[in-house]
């Protein structure tokens, strides 16, 4: 099983509902976020293109954060989801400097925190909070190893990209373009 998420940049309007849903669901401390919206305006006026992306941890298959962690607190959990075990984390920040996406932060309690793909919800058969709440239904979540899953089927059908594939991290966050 390999969990992944696909986000349709053509449908996303950048409303930040996913951000608020995540903060509420996961009790993210005020001033921090586990997911965020990036808007990229590109081109020569007046030929401009706007891409809106809801970003979060890429749950990489070849995670530098898991590799760098000196205690094994950062680890691959069910379905390849990268998690931090807070009772093993010493807060050395090696994982934070190792992440090319800067997806991690230090929780005010001292351990390192990040997106969990809402594994606690997924285990109950629900969707991650950000996916469930998206008003334009631009996010798809599922198992890459199952060809009939929503995410496998949309990746089959649409053109997509990942972020900094040249960093060699094999991200599990796909952006439909």
């Amino acid at each position: 099983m390999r969990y992944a998420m696909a986000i349709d940049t053509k449908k996303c309007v950048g409303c930040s509902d996913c951000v608020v849903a995540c903060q509420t669901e996961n009790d993210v401390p005020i001033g921090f976020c586990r997911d965020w919206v990036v808007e990229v305006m590109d081109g020569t006026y007046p030929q401009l293109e706007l891409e809106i992306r809801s970003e979060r941890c890429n749950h990489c298959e070849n995670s530098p954060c898991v590799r760098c962690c000196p205690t094994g607190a950062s680890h691959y959990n069910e379905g390849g989801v990268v998690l931090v075990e807070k009772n093993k984390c010493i807060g050395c920040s090696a994982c934070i400097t190792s992440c090319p996406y800067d997806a991690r932060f230090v929780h005010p309690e001292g351990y390192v925190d990040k997106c969990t793909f809402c594994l606690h919800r997924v285990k109950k058969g629900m969707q991650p909070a950000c996916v469930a709440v998206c008003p334009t239904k631009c996010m798809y979540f599922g198992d890459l190893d199952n060809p009939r899953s929503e995410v496998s089927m949309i990746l089959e059908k649409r053109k997509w990209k990942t972020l900094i594939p040249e960093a060699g991290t094999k991200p599990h966050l796909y952006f439909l373009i």
Partner: protein
Amino acid sequence: MHEEIIVSGRNNPLIDPQLHIWHWEIPLYLFLGGLAAGVLFFAALYTIRGRENDYRTAVKIAPFVAPIALVIGLIALFLDLHHKLYFWRLYTTIRLDSPMSWGAWTLMLVTPISMLWCALHIKELFPKWDWKFDIIKDVLAFFEKNKKVLAWIMLISSAVLGIYTGILFSAFNARPLWNTSILGPLFLASGLSAGSAITIWLSKDHAERKRFAQLDLIIIGIELFLIIHMFMGFLASTQVQIDAANLFLGGEYTAPFWIFVVILGMIVPAILEILELRKYKIPVVIPVVLVLFGSLMLRFIISYAGQVSRWLY
């Protein structure tokens, strides 16, 4: 004009707008660790070569700097941790992929060895020292007898410590400036240079000072060679690494790097050491302090600039 404007809603403390998660603690520790590695390396080297009496300061006096530097460095490392009470988790596992795990275990080996080395030579500093307990005397007598073996272990572990201070950075491919394997040998060389500077400072023997001034000159030459190669590597690499090199070639770290690290920390002390070898009278403290300062600044600048350098996406 073609333009790309990126607007991000993320504003996590210490991460945005620029990563600044590692402050003074890490570079200070890397400097002290490198210094300790340098001092211990020379002590072990000249013991193995049977030159203890020719290079008395290097073998018997300078190593006293090492445990002090390591303990201060360890305190700095501890202060850097955000989840401090869990620090012992470092020692419940060995993770070969993680440079930080390597470092934690290397320190676990090098720190006691450096203390043991000092205990063996304590009478050099305090001639009337008495250990009082026979068991301590017996243990020290055992190591005194096997000093060559201890010196070999110290030589290898101090080299690992010196190289690891650079590998810690170079293992992070997320920060293009750090992602060069040159940092391992460069930081080792810088640590050896700091170690020989300390020896020059503490030594009262002319021949020993001369030898370490010569050694330091060679090491500074190697450092300059490595720095040039580092930039050649960056400039021949991908855009992100060209951008990283440009932080030092016209960017915001240009002046501090070239003035503090290269000119004041390497070229000026090298010139002073050459003049001294040519019999000019130069207060020894000047090149020594400059070398130590340059070595410290190298760690600070690489640490801070590395956190600024990033991938584009």
